[in-house]
């Protein structure tokens, strides 16, 4: 430890000799600490502690600590920030990663639609999303949650079953699955499943690869059930953004609600505010095997996170800002997921909004999602 400030600083006693004081003689040895004095002392102590603490850590960590809000950074500062983060990522995963900060596509306004009448609940989107966006495998965070509902009851959230065809499936009528816990919690997928995510074309023709017919296997879609995958609804009136006390989350011009993981203080107000359960907190240090890291990253999207911050779906910002579909759209074997520009009258999403029966989740809350569910039959 370096030098501490002396406590019998003469400034602390200056207010003690005011007109209200009864004491006759000056007593410099017993100073009364009033509010202002205390704050002075505390800030002086904090500063004297912080400076040596900061100078003790390396250049990168210091710069990271003293940086300003993302919106206040000049282009040069952003470049420096990205360089620091890339170096961090390399240190952590031993791989060269690129972190881009590409701004929104001019005049684009993203929209997403999901065909509930087509979704079969195969969860390929969930795991493709985990892989693309470097979501932690253990503890497990998945931005997409696929809920199973009864066709007779409709969308009834308390009845939702997210664990269908798994070891925690409480559905008594469902065929029981022989469950084998993954040997390595860091990579829960088997070889075949990994291959599908690597090259989705091998799942076609779909009817020939329908491997779920076996006696012990649980196959989807199950009789009398339907599936509603839920992820961030990218609200135009996002309650999560409203409650953030530090502006660590905001709406981008193309409509994507993003989080600056370096600015997030982990208060989880946004999680309480989100009516869709779409935000996820890193309760533990996120773990991804270095070999599974997607090195193509965006600052506001899939770059590595730390323990204690909140994360969420960003429409695969690193893909969508480069013209690509989000990975969930690309991997969906039945084509139930649609993505596009609401401003483009030729886009699929506009066709859906103009021609199909569209459902908005929890519409009564006036969150005005950019995510629509629709029926095509």
């Amino acid at each position: 430890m370096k030098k501490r400030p002396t406590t019998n600083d003469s400034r602390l006693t200056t207010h003690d000799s005011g007109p209200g004081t009864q004491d006759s003689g000056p007593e410099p040895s017993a100073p009364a600490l009033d509010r202002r004095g205390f704050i002075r002392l505390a800030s002086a102590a904090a500063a004297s502690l912080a400076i040596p603490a900061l100078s003790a850590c390396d250049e990168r960590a210091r710069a990271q600590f003293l940086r300003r809000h993302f919106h206040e950074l000049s282009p040069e500062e952003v470049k420096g920030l990205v360089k620091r983060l890339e170096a961090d990522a390399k240190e952590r995963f031993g791989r060269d990663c690129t972190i881009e900060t590409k701004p929104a596509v001019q005049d684009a306004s993203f929209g997403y639609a999901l065909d509930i009448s087509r979704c079969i609940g195969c969860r390929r989107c969930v795991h493709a999303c985990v892989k693309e966006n470097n979501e932690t495998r253990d503890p497990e965070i998945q931005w997409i949650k696929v809920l199973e509902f009864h066709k007779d009851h409709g969308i009834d959230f308390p009845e939702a079953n997210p664990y269908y065809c798994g070891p925690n499936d409480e559905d008594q009528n469902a065929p029981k699955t022989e469950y084998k816990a993954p040997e390595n919690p860091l990579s829960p997928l088997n070889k075949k499943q990994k291959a599908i995510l690597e090259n989705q074309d091998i799942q076609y023709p779909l009817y020939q690869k329908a491997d779920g017919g076996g006696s012990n296997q649980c196959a989807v879609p199950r009789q009398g059930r339907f599936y509603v995958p839920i992820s961030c609804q990218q609200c135009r009136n996002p309650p999560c953004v409203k409650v953030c006390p530090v502006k660590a989350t905001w709406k981008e011009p193309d409509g994507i609600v993003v989080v600056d993981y370096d600015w997030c203080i982990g208060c989880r107000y946004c999680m309480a505010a989100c009516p869709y359960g779409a935000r996820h907190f890193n309760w533990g240090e996120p773990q991804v095997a270095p070999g599974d890291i997607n090195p193509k990253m965006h600052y506001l999207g899939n770059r590595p996170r730390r323990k204690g911050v909140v994360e969420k779906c960003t429409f695969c910002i690193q893909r969508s800002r480069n013209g690509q579909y989000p990975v969930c759209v690309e991997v969906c074997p039945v084509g139930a997921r649609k993505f596009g520009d609401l401003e483009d009258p030729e886009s699929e999403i506009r066709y859906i909004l103009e021609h199909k029966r569209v459902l908005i989740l929890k519409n009564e809350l006036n969150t005005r999602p950019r995510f629509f569910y629709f029926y095509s039959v």
Partner: protein
Amino acid sequence: MRNSSLSFGAIGIVMGTILVWACSEDTAEHAGTADKKPAPKTAGAASATREVHTPPPPFTEGIFPCSECHKDMETNPARRDLTDEHTGIVFEHDSKNRWCLDCHNPGDRDKLRLASGALIDFEHSYLLCGQCHGPTYRDWKAGVHGKRTGEWNGEKRYYLCAHCHNPHSPRIKPIAPFPAPRPPEGRPFILGGPGK
């Protein structure tokens, strides 16, 4: 009373104007006045969406070209159980009213035949499906039915009907799902509200 009827009238007029305006917009759109539409984001985006790129049709291995076997055979149009070849085909596609040669061309076996008699390649089988499944074909062309990959504002790749649907038995077959999520310890699942 009078006030409210007046305001209703006013609302009516406003609604009417909006309707007329909306309709005129609509007809202008259909008449193809290009200047009304905002320009596409990237050059050639609009034209690219109209082009249909599909991966090759999903033939069973070694089955194509059909003419390899069929060229010397005499065509037997009779409805019958196939016992020698194609025994794996389960035919559940309006099988009461249809038979092989309603879609497969009896002459040049490497082609499909439309109701009009026109011959098409297997790459364009969607034309054949679209003869009966009009609304679905319309959705498919718009990119809404079926899978699309590529770029949201540029070149896209369409999958054929036969990539997902078995043409002889088109209902989607159940498949094994990827692993279920692990439940958080000691907590029931909650989605922005009380769980069970």
